[in-house]
Each structure stands twice: as C-alpha cells, then as structure tokens.
C-alpha cells in the first residue's frame, strides 16, 4: 500500500500560503489512491514555480524548458507507452511560451494529464501578466494595466476537440484530487486548469477572490459539448468548477502504428538484421 507521504520529497521553495502546496498534496493523494508506484510515473514540466513540481513529488521527472513540457512529454509517451505521464506547469508556461504546443498537443491527443497551475500571473519572474491575467491588472510591466482580454484555455481546448476538460480550485482539495484521478485515468489528453492564488504577486485574484466565486457544477452532462462550452465561458461573479467535458476520442498512441506493441524503450535491436532495407535502392 502506497501512502500519499510516499510521494512527497524535497522541500518546496514556494511562498507560505501558495496554492501550489495544495496541488502537490492532492497529486500525492491521487497517485496513492491510484496505486501508481513512483517508478512508473513521470512528471514532466517546464519552468516556473508550478513547474518545480518534479522536485517535490517522488516519481520520475523531466524538468525541461520554459513552455516546452508538452513536446517533451510527447516524446516520453512515444518512447514508453507503459509509463503514467503527468505534465505540471504554470499558466505562463502552458498557455504563453508553450501556446503553440498546447494547441497542437490537443490535436494529437496523447495519453497524459496536464495540470495547469493557473495563478493568472508569472510567479517565478515576480509578477508580470500572464495570458490569463485579468484586463486592467497593473504590474511592473503592464503599467497601464493588462490591455488584452485573457486567454480562455478551457474554451480553446474544447473548440480544438480536447476529450477531457476540467477546472479546479486549489481550495477545493477533495474535488481537485478526484478530478486529478479522473484525468490521469482518462484515455487521452486531459486538461485540468487549476485556479490558485499567488500570494506574492497576484493581489487581484486572491484566495478570497476565488473562494467567493467558485462553485461546483452539479447536474452537468459532461458528454454535452455545448453545455461544456457554456461552462467554460462562464467567468466573473460566478466561476464553475468541475469536469466540463469527458468524451474519449482516438489517441496518439492508438493511431501511431509503431506504438501498438510493447513500449519502444528497451526493445532489443541488431543493426545487421536491417541490411535488407537497402534492396529498394538496388
């Protein structure tokens, strides 16, 4: 029996009160409840406060470049279809620097869970606006306030055809954990946008700000794309949480012929046995 504590390692360098602690705890619980041994799990991330997660969760880890967690994850997926793959990164990482990968990854639909720690700000670099920052938010680099409207990651994912789209809040621990489990076990790309406060740099979207607005969607049909889109578009005074959409579609793994058998990693290989590939040139 694995316990949540078995997945905790390192000493997080996050600020006291940071929402990332709750996300880490929920992840450790989700992994324990799914009985996934650490050596069978890979946590892949980019750069940012959120992206430090591979250092604090006992599992394999690929802490790559800012914005590039998803491409790296696709490669890991291709190399070894047996591993459970989780991408953990911030809103800036996932939607800004890595925006192009976000879009194309949805098209590919590899089997992985993507947990975006959305604090609506660039935390690590000390408070610049992120693609999800609210209009008007004043920062050191947005001195007149953010001028462009925020990116809506969930609506974008739905429109791109993502099969699993959910929103959580770090303050709703049980819901977060359960949603993580559902995302990890979902066959295909599963996006969970996790709202959480940045106590140091986001003075607009505080814990209270979220707490006052979020509510759990009930009576929601997660197989209905239209109502999923409606939920995804709801933002402001009331912000819905829940699995908005859950309808599997063919995955990257199921479509790529080379991935139908055993994982590619570790397969024996002898170059001499390939000599016949030259025949087509004769």
């Amino acid at each position: 029996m694995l316990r949540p504590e078995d997945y905790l390692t390192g000493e997080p360098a996050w600020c006291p009160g940071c929402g990332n602690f709750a996300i880490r705890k929920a992840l450790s619980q989700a992994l324990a409840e799914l009985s996934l041994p650490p050596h069978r799990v890979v946590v892949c991330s980019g750069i940012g406060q959120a992206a430090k997660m591979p250092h604090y969760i006992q599992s394999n880890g690929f802490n790559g470049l800012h914005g590039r967690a998803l491409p790296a994850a696709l490669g890991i997926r291709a190399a070894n279809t047996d591993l459970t793959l989780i991408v953990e990164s911030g809103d800036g990482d996932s939607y800004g620097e890595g925006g192009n990968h976000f879009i194309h990854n949805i098209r590919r639909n590899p089997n992985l869970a993507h947990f975006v720690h959305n604090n609506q700000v660039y935390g690590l670099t000390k408070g610049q606006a992120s693609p999800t920052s609210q209009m008007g938010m004043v920062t050191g680099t947005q001195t007149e306030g953010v001028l462009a409207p925020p990116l809506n990651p969930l609506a974008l994912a739905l429109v791109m055809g993502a099969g699993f789209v959910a929103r959580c809040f770090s303050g709703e621990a049980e819901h977060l954990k359960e949603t993580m489990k559902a995302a990890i076990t979902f066959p295909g790309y599963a996006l969970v946008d996790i709202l959480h406060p940045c106590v140091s740099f986001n003075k607009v979207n505080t814990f209270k700000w979220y707490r006052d607005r979020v509510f759990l969607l009930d009576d929601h049909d997660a197989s209905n794309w239209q109502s999923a889109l409606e939920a995804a578009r709801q933002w402001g005074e009331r912000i819905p949480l829940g699995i908005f959409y859950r309808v599997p579609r063919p995955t990257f793994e199921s479509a790529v012929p080379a991935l139908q058998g055993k994982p590619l990693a570790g397969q024996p290989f002898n170059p001499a046995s390939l000599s016949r590939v030259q025949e087509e040139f004769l």
Partner: protein
Amino acid sequence: MEVNVLIGGAAGQGMETVMHMLGKALAREGYLFIATKDYMSRVRGGHNFSRLRIAAERPWSPVDTADILVAMNAETYRLHEKNLGRDGRILFDPARFSLPEEEGRGLPVPFEELAREAGDPIMANSVAVGALWALLDLNLDRLPGIIEESFRGKEEVIRGNIAALEKGYREAASRCENCFAMPPAGTGKLMYIDGNQVLGMAALASGCRFFAAYPMTPATGIMTYLAGKSTAHGLVVEQAEDEIAAINMALGASYGGVRSMTATSGGGFSLMVEGLSLAGMTETPLVVTVAMRPGPATGLPTRTEQGDLDFVLKAGHGEFPRAVLSATTHEDAFFRLNKAFELADRYQAPVLFLSDQNFADTHRSLEPFDFSRLGHNRCLAEAADVEKPYKRYRYREDGISPRLLPGTLPGEVVLVDSDEHDERGNIIEDAKTRRAMMDKRLKKDALLAAEMDEPGVYGPGEGDYLLLGWGSTYGVLREAVDLLGREGLKGTLLHFSDLWPLPKTRLGDLFPRAGKTFCAENNATGQFAALIRRETGLQVDHNILKYDGRPFFPEEIAAEVKKHAAT
C-alpha cells in the same frame, strides 16, 4: 573514359522522374556515376537541371562540361549551350523551340509528339529518357522494368510509358548510331541513393526509434525516408508544429529510452538551440542533423553552403560539451551518422551532424553497405549494478553517470533537470555543487576529443601545397588534387569528417611539411580555417571560398591552387 550529361527543364516537366529512371537503370547495369541536382525553390516553371557523370573509375564530383545536353525547354539550351564540349550533342524537341541555324550539334527528337502517339503528351519525359538511352548506346531491356516498379498497378500508364520510351529510343538510335562510347559497366547491381536517403537509412539502422522534425529544405528528405519506414520498422516519425517542439520531443523520447534524432536546416536549427542547451544540461543523448543551405534568414532555400559551422560549434547558451561530425562521402556518412548515435549514448551529450544541400541531393551508384559494421551500444546502466538510491547525475571519475531509463527499476526514479542540479537531479543554487556539476559535464570534452577521427589524407602527405577541407567537398577537392597532379603540381588533401573537438594531430604533422596551404570552403568568411587557427595557431595561406549557393567544381579549386602555389 567518361560521359557527362546535363538535363534541364522547368519545374513540373517531370525531371525527377527522368533522373530516377536513368539513375536506377544505370545503377542496375553497374555503372559508376554521380548525379547532382540544381533546382529552384518553386513548384512550377523556373529552371532546374541535373548533371550526370558516368565514368570508368568512380567519379568523385560532377564536372562543368557536358557531352550531351538534354534540353526539355529553350532556356536549358540558352543557359547551358556553353557547357557543351566540341563533340557534344543537344537532344531537344523541335516542337518546343528551334536551334540557331549555325548550331550543328542538334539532335531533334519530337518528345511531345511521340508521347502523344504513345497515348499522352505528358509522357514526353519518358520519350526523352528513351532517346538518351539510345545515345548512350545502352540496351533498352532494363528500362521497362523500372517503369513497371514506378507505376505498379497502373497498367495503362505502364504500357503508355514503355511505348513512349521505345519511340524515343528508336527515333534517337536511327539518327545517331554509336554516338557516345560508354565506359565499361561493373559486374553487379549498385544502389542508386542520395545523401538524405543515406542518412535516413543510417538513422534507421542505428536503431533510431523516434524522429521529430519540421519540414525544411534540404533536410526534409531524411524525414521522408524515415516516415516511409515507420510502420514496417516500428519507429515514430512526428511532424512537429515547429522546430522548438521537434527538438524537445526528441529529447523527451531519448529520456524515455529510445535513440532519437531531429533534422533541419539553419533556420530551423536557430529555433532549436535552447533545446540543444537542454540536451547539454540534462546530459540527454541526442543527434541533430543540420543540412546547411545559404543564409542568413531564408537565404537560398534549395542551394548549398557550409556557412553554419561556427553557429553549430557554439549554438546554445552556456558551456557544455558536444561533438560535431560532418557528411563527406555517402559511405562515410552512413557509418559516421551511426557514430553520432554511438557517441551521444556513450557520452550522454548532443551530437551534431552537418550535412548540406550538396550532399543531401547528390545521388550516387554505390555498393550496398556492410551493416555489420554498425554499432548499437546504448551504454545503459544494468539494473543489477545500480548503486541505490539511484542518482541520475552521480559523480564518477570520468564524468559519465550511469544512465537508467525511467520505469525500469522498482523503487528508483530518474530525474533530469534544466536547472543546475545535484546528483539526484534536484534544483540547486549553491556554488560548490554548481562548480562540481560544470566540471563533471565538461570532462566529456576530453573524452569526445579522443573519439574524433583524424582527417583523411589524399596524396603523398607533402608537396607543393596542402589543401584543407571538410564535409561534402571531399569529392571535388580530391578531383582537384588529381587535376593538379596531371598538370605537374603535387600536393595533399587533408579532409575532415569529425570537426569538433577538432582533431589536431595530422594537422600538426602535415602543416610544416607543406608548401602553400589552402582551405576550401563553401562560405564567405573561411570559418574552418579560422577554427584551425583558433585551435592550433596554424594560419592557412589562402582561403578558397565560394558562397554563391553553388558547389565547387574541381577546375575552380585547381585554378586557385595553381595561382598561389607557384608564387
């Protein structure tokens, strides 16, 4: 004894098919030849041409003069009439254009009309192939089989094209009996293969199981080859959304446990450099093939240059070890790309493989390669020998930490990090660990240096001149040495395949014994000569540089050497 053919036409006139049929048929007859391609970055129109040189001894490069000019359009005649030797002939379609009155070398064959008779004017290119085959005095038997293979299943197309071939053949044969004496053919079938196919095949046979790239000329052929093999040979070929994704995917796959590669040209490589640095920091094996074309920016997309050497040597922020190898001849490149995979795995470092358009698009007839010479040593840690807890970056005398694949050892995890890290892979900031990790990684420099092959020597090792070169210019420089030899100037070619860490022993040996020293490069600033000077203090007397997007000809090199060697 040799025959040189220049075939030109507009994009869209089926030039590719012509060259494919000719090349394949000549290779099956065992002829030794080289075929190069000069084409424009457009899909229709423009002017494209190929040079075909068939010789009794292996031809190392094409030559500028042609014995037969196959002019599919008037422009080919206009542009290349000057290339024709005295006894040359011009094969052309009189319905397309007419030759000047005084032009006595014309050999009109109505390509389109005969094609129409065979069923469709679109088969004019098959008529041209038949006609050329007759001029070369070859047996027609070989060609129909190649048409059958190319159009398998399309009976009518096959019948039509064979009829077109025969018509062209008969027409030309009746007009020019024994026009050209072909060099003797070899005894066995040879492969007809270009540089990109050689590299694709080398990657496949090296056990590469993941390839991600974004299409970019002249590297795309590698991807095309591998994609064609992916289903049958169980490899994943992913067309990434951009080159940034491509290199990060390849790194992920390598971490996950398979040999992986990406390929691109300069512009795409510019986007990859942060990923290259990540390979250095995370000590993840990776092969990156860079097929150079002239820059800056988009430059000349379909042409050749050796302008990215400096870039590739230094690409990526921070200091980390790498190896840079290059494609010289097709055979050498086949085994050298395998070496790139071997080095990447053994030293857990990025290995760059430099090709260029000149190499990528050049076809040759070649004996099949000996695949038993290829290596597949993954240099992974044996689970039983792993010291616990497993630490991905455990300090070792030689700087190489035992590498375990994630998921293979219960209880042990593999953590890699783009941040500076400790032995476990955890992010750190303390000065002591930073120094230790830098030192650990940089130890690989010396190890890689010991793996570099000394440059190849062609010639006596001394003489009036020492000619230096690297990469795809090997053939042309070797021919230049022969040419100079025939004119009484004796000298030596020292040609580099492995570029970084720069192998220095032979340089040190031969430089002092040389008369004048030359370095020939397809770039404007003499990057390799500068590298030699930086690394050894040796100063080349003359740079021979060409940066108009076209490859060198032996005559150009020989003329430059002659001009300066005497003085």
